Protein backbone atom coordinates (compact mmCIF):
# COMPACT_ATOMS: atom_id res chain seq x y z
CA UNK A 1 0.00 0.00 0.00
CA UNK A 2 2.76 2.41 1.01
CA UNK A 3 4.78 1.36 -2.02
CA UNK A 4 1.83 2.08 -4.33
CA UNK A 5 1.41 5.54 -2.79
CA UNK A 6 5.12 6.18 -3.19
CA UNK A 7 4.93 5.15 -6.83
CA UNK A 8 1.93 7.30 -7.60
CA UNK A 9 2.95 10.43 -5.76
CA UNK A 10 6.75 10.52 -5.74
CA UNK A 11 8.45 8.18 -8.16
CA UNK A 12 7.70 7.80 -11.01
CA UNK A 13 4.48 9.62 -10.28
CA UNK A 14 3.52 13.23 -9.84
CA UNK A 15 6.53 14.74 -8.09
CA UNK A 16 9.19 13.13 -10.26
CA UNK A 17 7.28 13.90 -13.46
CA UNK A 18 6.72 17.50 -12.41
CA UNK A 19 10.37 18.14 -11.61
CA UNK A 20 11.60 16.24 -14.64
CA UNK A 21 9.06 18.08 -16.78
CA UNK A 22 10.48 21.43 -15.66
CA UNK A 23 13.98 20.22 -16.39
CA UNK A 24 12.93 18.89 -19.79
CA UNK A 25 11.36 22.24 -20.67
CA UNK A 26 14.59 23.97 -19.65
CA UNK A 27 16.69 21.66 -21.83
CA UNK A 28 14.33 22.11 -24.77
CA UNK A 29 14.32 25.90 -24.54
CA UNK A 30 18.05 26.16 -23.91
CA UNK A 31 19.00 24.04 -26.90
CA UNK A 32 16.41 25.80 -29.08
CA UNK A 33 18.08 29.09 -28.14
CA UNK A 34 21.61 27.82 -28.68
CA UNK A 35 20.70 26.55 -32.14
CA UNK A 36 19.57 30.08 -32.88
CA UNK A 37 22.81 31.62 -31.60
CA UNK A 38 21.15 33.10 -28.48
CA UNK A 39 21.89 32.65 -24.77
CA UNK A 40 18.52 31.22 -23.74
CA UNK A 41 16.70 31.18 -20.40
CA UNK A 42 18.38 30.39 -17.03
CA UNK A 43 17.76 27.03 -15.34
CA UNK A 44 14.99 28.27 -13.05
CA UNK A 45 12.91 29.85 -15.84
CA UNK A 46 10.25 27.06 -16.14
CA UNK A 47 9.78 27.03 -12.36
CA UNK A 48 9.49 30.82 -12.31
CA UNK A 49 6.88 30.68 -15.09
CA UNK A 50 4.89 28.07 -13.16
CA UNK A 51 4.93 30.06 -9.92
CA UNK A 52 3.98 33.26 -11.72
CA UNK A 53 1.05 31.61 -13.49
CA UNK A 54 -0.27 30.03 -10.31
CA UNK A 55 -0.29 33.35 -8.51
CA UNK A 56 -2.38 35.10 -11.18
CA UNK A 57 -6.10 35.69 -11.20
CA UNK A 58 -8.26 33.28 -13.15
CA UNK A 59 -10.61 34.94 -15.63
CA UNK A 60 -13.21 32.68 -17.20
CA UNK A 61 -15.18 34.05 -20.18
CA UNK A 62 -18.86 34.56 -19.59
CA UNK A 63 -20.03 32.35 -22.43
CA UNK A 64 -17.69 29.47 -21.66
CA UNK A 65 -18.90 26.28 -20.03
CA UNK A 66 -17.28 26.57 -16.61
CA UNK A 67 -17.24 22.88 -15.67
CA UNK A 68 -15.66 21.67 -18.89
CA UNK A 69 -13.30 24.65 -18.95
CA UNK A 70 -11.96 23.88 -15.49
CA UNK A 71 -11.98 20.10 -15.81
CA UNK A 72 -10.02 19.67 -19.04
CA UNK A 73 -6.54 20.65 -17.81
CA UNK A 74 -6.93 18.29 -14.86
CA UNK A 75 -7.90 15.37 -17.11
CA UNK A 76 -4.95 16.10 -19.44
CA UNK A 77 -2.57 16.09 -16.50
CA UNK A 78 -4.02 12.89 -15.08
CA UNK A 79 -3.85 10.98 -18.36
CA UNK A 80 -0.22 11.75 -18.98
CA UNK A 81 0.75 11.01 -15.38
CA UNK A 82 -0.98 7.63 -15.36
CA UNK A 83 0.66 6.40 -18.55
CA UNK A 84 4.17 6.50 -17.08
CA UNK A 85 3.24 3.68 -14.70
CA UNK A 86 3.24 1.24 -17.61
CA UNK A 87 6.52 2.27 -19.24
CA UNK A 88 9.71 0.56 -18.03
CA UNK A 89 12.06 3.14 -16.55
CA UNK A 90 14.35 1.30 -14.16
CA UNK A 91 15.13 -2.06 -15.59
CA UNK A 92 13.02 -4.29 -17.74
CA UNK A 93 9.77 -4.19 -15.81
CA UNK A 94 7.45 -1.24 -15.37
CA UNK A 95 5.51 -0.65 -12.16
CA UNK A 96 2.46 -2.34 -13.65
CA UNK A 97 2.59 -4.42 -16.77
CA UNK A 98 0.30 -6.81 -18.55
CA UNK A 99 -0.03 -8.09 -22.06
CA UNK A 100 -1.54 -5.30 -24.10
CA UNK A 101 -0.32 -2.29 -22.18
CA UNK A 102 1.22 -0.78 -25.34
CA UNK A 103 -2.29 -0.05 -26.55
CA UNK A 104 -3.27 1.39 -23.17
CA UNK A 105 -0.30 3.74 -23.10
CA UNK A 106 -0.93 4.96 -26.64
CA UNK A 107 -4.59 5.48 -25.82
CA UNK A 108 -3.79 7.40 -22.65
CA UNK A 109 -1.45 9.64 -24.62
CA UNK A 110 -4.27 10.46 -27.05
CA UNK A 111 -6.54 11.73 -24.28
CA UNK A 112 -4.75 15.07 -23.77
CA UNK A 113 -5.41 16.00 -27.41
CA UNK A 114 -9.12 15.36 -26.89
CA UNK A 115 -9.11 17.51 -23.78
CA UNK A 116 -7.46 20.32 -25.69
CA UNK A 117 -10.21 20.02 -28.27
CA UNK A 118 -13.02 20.06 -25.69
CA UNK A 119 -11.46 22.85 -23.66
CA UNK A 120 -11.02 24.98 -26.77
CA UNK A 121 -14.50 24.22 -28.10
CA UNK A 122 -16.22 25.07 -24.85
CA UNK A 123 -14.30 28.32 -24.49
CA UNK A 124 -16.67 29.68 -27.14
CA UNK A 125 -14.11 32.12 -28.51
CA UNK A 126 -13.60 32.18 -32.28
CA UNK A 127 -9.87 31.62 -32.06
CA UNK A 128 -10.13 28.70 -29.64
CA UNK A 129 -12.83 27.01 -31.69
CA UNK A 130 -10.69 27.12 -34.81
CA UNK A 131 -7.68 25.88 -32.83
CA UNK A 132 -9.71 23.03 -31.32
CA UNK A 133 -10.93 21.84 -34.72
CA UNK A 134 -7.39 22.01 -36.06
CA UNK A 135 -5.98 19.90 -33.24
CA UNK A 136 -8.46 17.10 -33.98
CA UNK A 137 -7.77 17.29 -37.72
CA UNK A 138 -4.09 17.04 -37.00
CA UNK A 139 -4.74 14.03 -34.77
CA UNK A 140 -6.00 12.00 -37.72
CA UNK A 141 -2.79 12.69 -39.61
CA UNK A 142 -0.07 11.73 -37.15
CA UNK A 143 -1.74 9.05 -34.99
CA UNK A 144 -1.66 6.31 -37.63
CA UNK A 145 2.09 6.43 -38.40
CA UNK A 146 2.86 6.68 -34.68
CA UNK A 147 0.74 3.68 -33.77
CA UNK A 148 2.07 1.65 -36.68
CA UNK A 149 5.74 2.26 -35.96
CA UNK A 150 5.43 1.41 -32.27
CA UNK A 151 3.33 -1.64 -33.03
CA UNK A 152 5.89 -2.71 -35.64
CA UNK A 153 8.45 -2.80 -32.88
CA UNK A 154 6.05 -4.84 -30.75
CA UNK A 155 5.51 -7.26 -33.65
CA UNK A 156 9.20 -8.09 -33.84
CA UNK A 157 9.31 -8.72 -30.10
CA UNK A 158 6.18 -10.89 -30.36
CA UNK A 159 4.54 -9.39 -27.28
CA UNK A 160 2.01 -6.62 -26.60
CA UNK A 161 3.58 -5.58 -23.32
CA UNK A 162 6.12 -2.75 -23.07
CA UNK A 163 8.05 -4.56 -20.36
CA UNK A 164 8.14 -7.64 -22.58
CA UNK A 165 9.48 -5.58 -25.47
CA UNK A 166 12.16 -4.05 -23.27
CA UNK A 167 13.19 -7.51 -22.10
CA UNK A 168 13.33 -8.84 -25.67
CA UNK A 169 15.40 -5.98 -27.07
CA UNK A 170 17.84 -5.88 -24.20
CA UNK A 171 18.55 -9.58 -24.72
CA UNK A 172 18.94 -9.22 -28.50
CA UNK A 173 20.77 -5.92 -28.78
CA UNK A 174 21.48 -6.09 -32.52
CA UNK A 175 17.75 -6.04 -33.37
CA UNK A 176 17.65 -2.37 -32.49
CA UNK A 177 18.84 -1.56 -36.02
CA UNK A 178 15.77 -3.10 -37.58
CA UNK A 179 13.59 -0.38 -36.13
CA UNK A 180 15.50 2.67 -37.35
CA UNK A 181 12.82 3.70 -39.85
CA UNK A 182 10.23 3.38 -37.13
CA UNK A 183 12.33 5.54 -34.83
CA UNK A 184 12.52 8.33 -37.42
CA UNK A 185 8.79 8.16 -38.15
CA UNK A 186 7.76 8.21 -34.51
CA UNK A 187 10.13 11.08 -33.73
CA UNK A 188 8.37 13.21 -36.33
CA UNK A 189 4.98 12.08 -35.08
CA UNK A 190 6.03 12.97 -31.54
CA UNK A 191 6.45 16.53 -32.81
CA UNK A 192 2.85 16.38 -33.94
CA UNK A 193 1.60 15.03 -30.64
CA UNK A 194 3.45 17.68 -28.66
CA UNK A 195 2.24 20.35 -31.10
CA UNK A 196 5.68 21.69 -31.90
CA UNK A 197 6.88 23.27 -35.15
CA UNK A 198 6.40 22.16 -37.97
CA UNK A 199 3.17 20.73 -36.60
CA UNK A 200 2.15 23.44 -34.16
CA UNK A 201 -0.83 24.30 -36.36
CA UNK A 202 -3.42 24.12 -33.54
CA UNK A 203 -1.46 26.68 -31.59
CA UNK A 204 -0.28 28.90 -34.43
CA UNK A 205 0.53 32.11 -32.64
CA UNK A 206 0.44 34.40 -35.63
CA UNK A 207 -2.84 33.09 -37.03
CA UNK A 208 -5.16 32.27 -34.16
CA UNK A 209 -3.49 33.91 -31.16
CA UNK A 210 -3.09 30.79 -29.01
CA UNK A 211 -5.52 28.30 -30.48
CA UNK A 212 -7.43 26.24 -27.91
CA UNK A 213 -5.64 27.95 -25.04
CA UNK A 214 -6.54 31.53 -25.90
CA UNK A 215 -8.93 31.96 -23.00
CA UNK A 216 -6.92 30.04 -20.41
CA UNK A 217 -4.99 31.98 -17.77
CA UNK A 218 -3.82 31.67 -14.20
CA UNK A 219 -3.79 28.27 -12.52
CA UNK A 220 -5.47 26.46 -15.40
CA UNK A 221 -2.82 27.65 -17.85
CA UNK A 222 -0.14 26.49 -15.40
CA UNK A 223 -1.73 23.02 -15.43
CA UNK A 224 -1.90 22.97 -19.20
CA UNK A 225 1.74 23.92 -19.56
CA UNK A 226 2.67 21.29 -16.98
CA UNK A 227 0.65 18.70 -18.88
CA UNK A 228 2.55 19.65 -22.05
CA UNK A 229 5.86 19.20 -20.23
CA UNK A 230 4.82 15.88 -18.74
CA UNK A 231 3.55 14.72 -22.13
CA UNK A 232 6.97 15.55 -23.54
CA UNK A 233 8.69 13.50 -20.84
CA UNK A 234 6.31 10.56 -21.20
CA UNK A 235 6.52 10.61 -25.01
CA UNK A 236 10.31 10.69 -24.86
CA UNK A 237 10.28 7.87 -22.28
CA UNK A 238 8.02 5.79 -24.52
CA UNK A 239 10.32 6.27 -27.49
CA UNK A 240 13.36 5.49 -25.37
CA UNK A 241 11.77 2.33 -24.00
CA UNK A 242 10.64 1.08 -27.41
CA UNK A 243 13.52 2.07 -29.65
CA UNK A 244 16.55 2.64 -27.39
CA UNK A 245 16.48 -0.03 -24.69
CA UNK A 246 20.19 -0.40 -24.03
CA UNK A 247 22.05 -1.69 -21.02
CA UNK A 248 19.05 -2.93 -19.09
CA UNK A 249 21.14 -5.69 -17.60
CA UNK A 250 23.21 -3.19 -15.63
CA UNK A 251 22.85 -2.62 -11.88
CA UNK A 252 20.25 -0.15 -10.66
CA UNK A 253 22.64 2.69 -9.96
CA UNK A 254 23.70 2.83 -13.58
CA UNK A 255 20.27 2.42 -15.17
CA UNK A 256 18.74 5.63 -13.84
CA UNK A 257 21.41 7.96 -15.32
CA UNK A 258 21.21 5.97 -18.55
CA UNK A 259 17.46 6.53 -18.67
CA UNK A 260 17.94 10.23 -18.07
CA UNK A 261 20.53 10.44 -20.83
CA UNK A 262 18.24 8.63 -23.28
CA UNK A 263 15.31 10.94 -22.57
CA UNK A 264 17.44 14.08 -22.75
CA UNK A 265 18.87 12.86 -26.07
CA UNK A 266 15.39 12.52 -27.52
CA UNK A 267 14.41 15.96 -26.20
CA UNK A 268 17.49 17.50 -27.82
CA UNK A 269 16.49 15.86 -31.10
CA UNK A 270 13.02 17.35 -30.71
CA UNK A 271 14.52 20.81 -30.09
CA UNK A 272 16.70 20.40 -33.17
CA UNK A 273 13.79 19.44 -35.40
CA UNK A 274 11.78 22.30 -33.92
CA UNK A 275 14.27 24.93 -35.04
CA UNK A 276 14.80 23.47 -38.46
CA UNK A 277 11.49 23.94 -40.24
CA UNK A 278 8.80 26.50 -40.93
CA UNK A 279 5.24 25.72 -39.87
CA UNK A 280 3.25 23.73 -42.44
CA UNK A 281 -0.29 24.55 -43.46
CA UNK A 282 -2.95 22.07 -42.36
CA UNK A 283 -3.62 20.63 -45.80
CA UNK A 284 0.11 20.39 -46.51
CA UNK A 285 0.66 18.59 -43.20
CA UNK A 286 -2.05 16.01 -43.86
CA UNK A 287 -0.65 15.46 -47.36
CA UNK A 288 2.82 14.98 -45.96
CA UNK A 289 1.76 12.56 -43.24
CA UNK A 290 -0.34 10.36 -45.51
CA UNK A 291 2.05 10.52 -48.49
CA UNK A 292 5.35 9.90 -46.70
CA UNK A 293 5.01 8.96 -43.05
CA UNK A 294 2.24 6.38 -43.28
CA UNK A 295 3.88 4.42 -46.15
CA UNK A 296 7.18 4.43 -44.24
CA UNK A 297 5.41 3.07 -41.16
CA UNK A 298 3.74 0.37 -43.29
CA UNK A 299 7.16 -0.46 -44.71
CA UNK A 300 8.49 -0.87 -41.20
CA UNK A 301 5.63 -3.21 -40.30
CA UNK A 302 6.25 -5.29 -43.41
CA UNK A 303 9.98 -5.40 -42.72
CA UNK A 304 9.43 -6.56 -39.16
CA UNK A 305 6.99 -9.27 -40.24
CA UNK A 306 9.58 -10.63 -42.67
CA UNK A 307 12.36 -10.39 -40.12
CA UNK A 308 10.27 -12.13 -37.50
CA UNK A 309 9.99 -15.14 -39.75
CA UNK A 310 13.63 -15.08 -40.78
CA UNK A 311 15.72 -14.12 -37.76
CA UNK A 312 16.55 -16.46 -34.89
CA UNK A 313 14.80 -15.76 -31.62
Amino acid at each position, binding site marked *: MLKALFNILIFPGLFFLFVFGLFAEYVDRKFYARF*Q*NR*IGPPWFQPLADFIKLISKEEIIPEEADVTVFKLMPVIALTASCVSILYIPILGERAIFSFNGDVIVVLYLLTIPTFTYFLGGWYSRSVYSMIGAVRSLTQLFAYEVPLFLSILASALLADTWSLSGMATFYSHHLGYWFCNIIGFGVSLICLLGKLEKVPFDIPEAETEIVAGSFTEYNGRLLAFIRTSFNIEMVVGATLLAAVFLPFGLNLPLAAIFPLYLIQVIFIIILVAFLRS*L*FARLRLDQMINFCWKYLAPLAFLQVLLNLILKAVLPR
Partner: protein
Amino acid sequence: MSRPGKIARLLIQSLFKKPATVNYPADCSGMPEGFRGKLKFNPSLCIGCKMCMRDCPSGAIEIRKIGEKQFEAEINLARCIYCGQCVDSCLKKALEITAEFELARLDPAQLKVILNAGNKDNPKG
Protein backbone atom coordinates in the same frame (compact mmCIF):
# COMPACT_ATOMS: atom_id res chain seq x y z
CA MET B 1 17.16 21.66 -55.74
CA SER B 2 15.31 22.08 -52.49
CA ARG B 3 15.36 19.87 -49.46
CA PRO B 4 13.85 20.32 -46.01
CA GLY B 5 16.19 21.23 -43.21
CA LYS B 6 18.71 23.13 -45.31
CA ILE B 7 19.57 25.31 -42.35
CA ALA B 8 20.80 22.30 -40.31
CA ARG B 9 24.51 22.95 -40.78
CA LEU B 10 24.23 26.54 -39.55
CA LEU B 11 22.32 25.35 -36.47
CA ILE B 12 24.98 22.83 -35.48
CA GLN B 13 27.72 25.41 -36.02
CA SER B 14 25.91 27.91 -33.81
CA LEU B 15 25.91 25.39 -30.98
CA PHE B 16 29.67 25.84 -30.62
CA LYS B 17 29.92 29.57 -31.27
CA LYS B 18 29.61 32.41 -28.81
CA PRO B 19 25.96 33.55 -28.61
CA ALA B 20 25.03 36.82 -30.27
CA THR B 21 22.88 38.09 -27.41
CA VAL B 22 24.40 39.76 -24.36
CA ASN B 23 23.37 39.39 -20.75
CA TYR B 24 22.27 42.95 -20.02
CA PRO B 25 22.69 44.58 -17.46
CA ALA B 26 25.52 42.33 -16.31
CA ASP B 27 27.30 43.02 -19.59
CA CYS B 28 26.70 46.65 -20.62
CA SER B 29 29.16 47.76 -23.26
CA GLY B 30 27.29 50.96 -23.97
CA MET B 31 26.63 52.67 -27.26
CA PRO B 32 29.17 53.66 -29.94
CA GLU B 33 30.72 57.12 -29.68
CA GLY B 34 28.70 59.85 -31.29
CA PHE B 35 25.49 58.37 -29.92
CA ARG B 36 22.99 61.05 -28.95
CA GLY B 37 22.14 60.75 -25.27
CA LYS B 38 21.84 63.19 -22.42
CA LEU B 39 22.73 66.86 -22.84
CA LYS B 40 25.61 68.69 -21.12
CA PHE B 41 25.45 72.44 -20.49
CA ASN B 42 28.22 74.99 -19.94
CA PRO B 43 26.70 78.01 -18.12
CA SER B 44 29.80 80.18 -18.61
CA LEU B 45 29.20 80.30 -22.38
CA CYS B 46 25.42 80.85 -22.32
CA ILE B 47 24.17 84.32 -23.18
CA GLY B 48 20.46 83.65 -22.66
CA CYS B 49 19.35 84.10 -26.30
CA LYS B 50 16.93 81.15 -25.96
CA MET B 51 17.45 79.97 -29.58
CA CYS B 52 17.54 76.41 -28.24
CA MET B 53 14.11 76.85 -26.70
CA ARG B 54 12.77 78.21 -30.01
CA ASP B 55 14.04 75.29 -32.07
CA CYS B 56 13.34 72.42 -29.67
CA PRO B 57 10.67 70.21 -31.31
CA SER B 58 9.13 69.14 -28.02
CA GLY B 59 9.69 72.05 -25.61
CA ALA B 60 12.03 70.05 -23.41
CA ILE B 61 14.64 72.69 -22.52
CA GLU B 62 14.10 75.85 -20.50
CA ILE B 63 16.68 78.58 -19.92
CA ARG B 64 16.19 80.66 -16.79
CA LYS B 65 18.04 83.70 -15.48
CA ILE B 66 19.48 83.13 -11.99
CA GLY B 67 21.71 86.15 -11.71
CA GLU B 68 23.50 88.91 -13.63
CA LYS B 69 24.57 87.26 -16.95
CA GLN B 70 24.05 83.85 -15.28
CA PHE B 71 21.69 81.31 -16.72
CA GLU B 72 20.68 77.78 -15.84
CA ALA B 73 19.16 75.14 -18.14
CA GLU B 74 16.47 72.73 -17.07
CA ILE B 75 15.67 69.82 -19.35
CA ASN B 76 12.78 67.44 -19.06
CA LEU B 77 14.31 64.01 -19.75
CA ALA B 78 10.92 62.56 -20.62
CA ARG B 79 10.12 65.19 -23.24
CA CYS B 80 13.57 65.39 -24.81
CA ILE B 81 13.75 63.42 -28.07
CA TYR B 82 17.58 63.48 -28.07
CA CYS B 83 17.74 64.99 -31.55
CA GLY B 84 20.50 67.49 -30.77
CA GLN B 85 18.85 70.39 -32.58
CA CYS B 86 19.55 72.67 -29.59
CA VAL B 87 23.26 71.83 -29.90
CA ASP B 88 23.16 72.96 -33.55
CA SER B 89 21.08 76.05 -32.84
CA CYS B 90 23.18 77.37 -29.94
CA LEU B 91 25.11 80.44 -31.11
CA LYS B 92 27.84 80.08 -28.47
CA LYS B 93 28.21 76.27 -28.43
CA ALA B 94 27.19 76.08 -24.79
CA LEU B 95 25.35 72.75 -25.20
CA GLU B 96 26.96 69.41 -25.87
CA ILE B 97 25.53 65.94 -26.30
CA THR B 98 26.93 62.92 -24.42
CA ALA B 99 26.38 59.20 -24.96
CA GLU B 100 24.63 58.53 -21.64
CA PHE B 101 21.34 56.78 -22.40
CA GLU B 102 20.33 54.89 -19.25
CA LEU B 103 18.02 57.65 -18.10
CA ALA B 104 14.97 55.79 -16.85
CA ARG B 105 13.78 56.79 -13.38
CA LEU B 106 11.09 55.41 -11.12
CA ASP B 107 10.10 58.82 -9.76
CA PRO B 108 8.69 61.25 -12.38
CA ALA B 109 9.90 64.26 -10.39
CA GLN B 110 13.48 63.13 -11.03
CA LEU B 111 12.97 63.50 -14.76
CA LYS B 112 13.28 67.31 -14.68
CA VAL B 113 17.00 67.90 -14.35
CA ILE B 114 18.84 71.20 -13.88
CA LEU B 115 22.09 71.07 -15.81
CA ASN B 116 25.33 72.64 -14.67
CA ALA B 117 28.75 72.45 -16.23
CA GLY B 118 30.59 69.29 -15.27
CA ASN B 119 28.62 66.42 -13.80
CA LYS B 120 26.62 67.87 -10.97
CA ASP B 121 22.93 67.53 -11.81
CA ASN B 122 20.35 68.64 -9.26
CA PRO B 123 16.91 67.09 -9.64
CA LYS B 124 14.21 69.64 -9.13
CA GLY B 125 13.47 69.40 -5.42
